[in-house]
């Protein structure tokens, strides 16, 4: 009995110390600040940018950085800083839209094949093998080539390829969770399969998927801007980091800031997601 008291006393502090732990991790904290600020930029770009990102001024073409234009101006005289800021909207959207559908599909499929195994699992194994044989980018480019360039098609392409990675992770984790007696207990209690899978197994199996999701958001931004750079994703004149880098490409010797600044934005945002992912992996690892 005293044992129970001690356990409950110790564990009631646990959620609190977990938050404290998070605040004490500089990596996680920096990541959270970066992503928090990036989200603000994405939601309210006009508040932070002083110019219309598409305002063309032929009298101020390719100006070097100055107080009026901290990142300079591009070949059409548009304010580069405003364009980088407005690009946050599209690029942060990519982090979400290029991953949530893959996440949803992958988690569902992974949980189902992990629970039922059998023929479905064997078919799934073959599909996974077939998809991961190709480098991710090559396959996505192939799908975009078929569907045609553009943001929506890019999301579809990334989802079609990306769900596999989530599903694989989820399947393995569900199988591991099924080794615990609570899964058998659920069956023996006469619960429906749906209840066991989605209410009992899935919440217990989702942690590594969430950690991977953070990393995947960083990858999605990289991938999205790569495709934008190649002309397969966002289309000019939309302000998107990949597009911006591509536009500055021809002036790299004379106006290097045009390509460098969006590149730095990609690096910082990617770093933010990775730091959060690392921090979450550490924080979620010990089970309460």
């Amino acid at each position, binding site marked *: 009995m005293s044992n129970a008291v001690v356990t409950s006393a110790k564990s009631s502090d646990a959620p609190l110390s977990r938050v404290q732990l998070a605040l004490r991790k500089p990596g996680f904290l920096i990541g959270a600040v970066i992503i928090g600020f990036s989200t603000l930029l994405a939601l309210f770009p006009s508040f932070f940018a002083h110019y219309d990102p598409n305002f063309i001024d032929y009298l101020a073409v390719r100006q070097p950085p100055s107080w009026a234009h901290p990142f300079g101006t591009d070949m059409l005289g548009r304010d580069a800083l405003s364009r980088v800021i407005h690009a946050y909207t599209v690029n942060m959207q990519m982090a979400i839209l290029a991953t949530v559908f893959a996440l949803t599909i992958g988690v569902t499929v992974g949980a189902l094949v992990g629970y039922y195994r059998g023929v479905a699992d064997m078919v799934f194994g073959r599909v996974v093998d077939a998809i991961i044989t190709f480098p991710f980018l090559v396959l996505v480019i192939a799908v975009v080539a078929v569907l045609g360039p553009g943001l929506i098609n890019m999301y579809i392409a990334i989802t079609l390829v990306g769900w596999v990675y989530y599903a694989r992770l989820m399947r393995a984790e569900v199988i591991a969770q099924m080794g615990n007696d*609570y899964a058998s207990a659920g069956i023996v*209690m*006469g619960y429906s399969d749906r209840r066991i899978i989605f209410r009992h197994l899935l*919440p217990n199996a989702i942690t590594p998927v969430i950690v991977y999701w953070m990393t995947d958001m960083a990858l999605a931004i990289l991938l999205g801007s790569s495709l934008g750079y190649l002309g397969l994703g966002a289309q000019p004149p939309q302000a998107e980091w990949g597009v911006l880098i591509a536009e500055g490409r021809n002036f790299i010797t004379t106006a290097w800031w045009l390509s460098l600044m969006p590149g730095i934005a990609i690096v910082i945002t990617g770093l933010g997601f990775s730091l959060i992912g690392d921090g979450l992996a550490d924080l979620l690892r010990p089970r309460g």
Partner: protein
Amino acid sequence: MTDHPILEVDNLCTTFSRGGTDLPAVRDVSFALGKGQVQGLVGESGSGKSVTLRSILGLARHYGEVRGSVRWQGQELTTMSERQLRKIRGREIAMIFQEPMTSLNPLLTVGTQLTETLKAHTDLGRRARRDRAIEMLDHVGIPAAASRLGEYPHQFSGGMRQRVMIAIALAASPKLLLADEPTTALDVTIQAQILDLILKLADEMSMGVVLVTHDLGVVAQTCDTVSVMYAGRVVEQGAVRQVLQTPRHPYTEGLMRSVPQDVPPRTQLYSVPGTPPSLFSLPEGCAFAPRCQAAGSACQTARPALQDIAPGRQTACFHPLPATQDNAA
């Protein structure tokens, strides 16, 4: 005394296949259980006792092949669809597991998990479910039940968790409880409490219990009948008093001798020589022959069948130990 058995297990065989080889986990297990009776399944690790239990409720068929027959109040369970089985599971037959650390979902509160069972198996409304949940927790001896409904499994000790598990299993008033080593993971004082609790509730609810254990002491205290299993087969079964007092199978006898009884300190304890055979390569004859002191040449080549040696008493041995005068009954 036993009017009509509620559970009849007949020639139950469960086979797992690993990498193309068949693993005979359970072979020809038969027993019957009357209303309110407690049946023990004893044996070493890997003797097939847990698999037998899991085969009864159709858990084993998810990963192995189950043959033979399990009849529950006349209904055949082995061939029943999952859909029909779901109505029996939890409502008529419930099961509790060995590891109280993993047999509760760590992410849901105890109250949620208790009411979930009631939701699945009864027509009770939200309030009534909550009341019943508190009543059940109270019933299994958890103090301040109402205030603990909102707590998570990790806030309970091992023994308390096993009590919660019992409360969940018994919430829908099943007629049979399958208990898979329910006290093995608990310390000795808690073990006794949990066993007493199971017996008390079984008695109150006139519920049958199939108890899997490797502890003969537990069997002696709790069971009416017992089946001793070795390498997937029953080697001896009958009424607990008879089997434990005058074991006829050398293996049962060995198990009995390995329980320390009134020995002076620092006496070396007896253990059955050798180790159980691998199920992948069972000996041709009696599986126990390599470890048996009474084994003759027949034991190496032929497997003794389980035979009646007295009313309600069976053993599978060519050279059964002599029945002493205690066994006259």
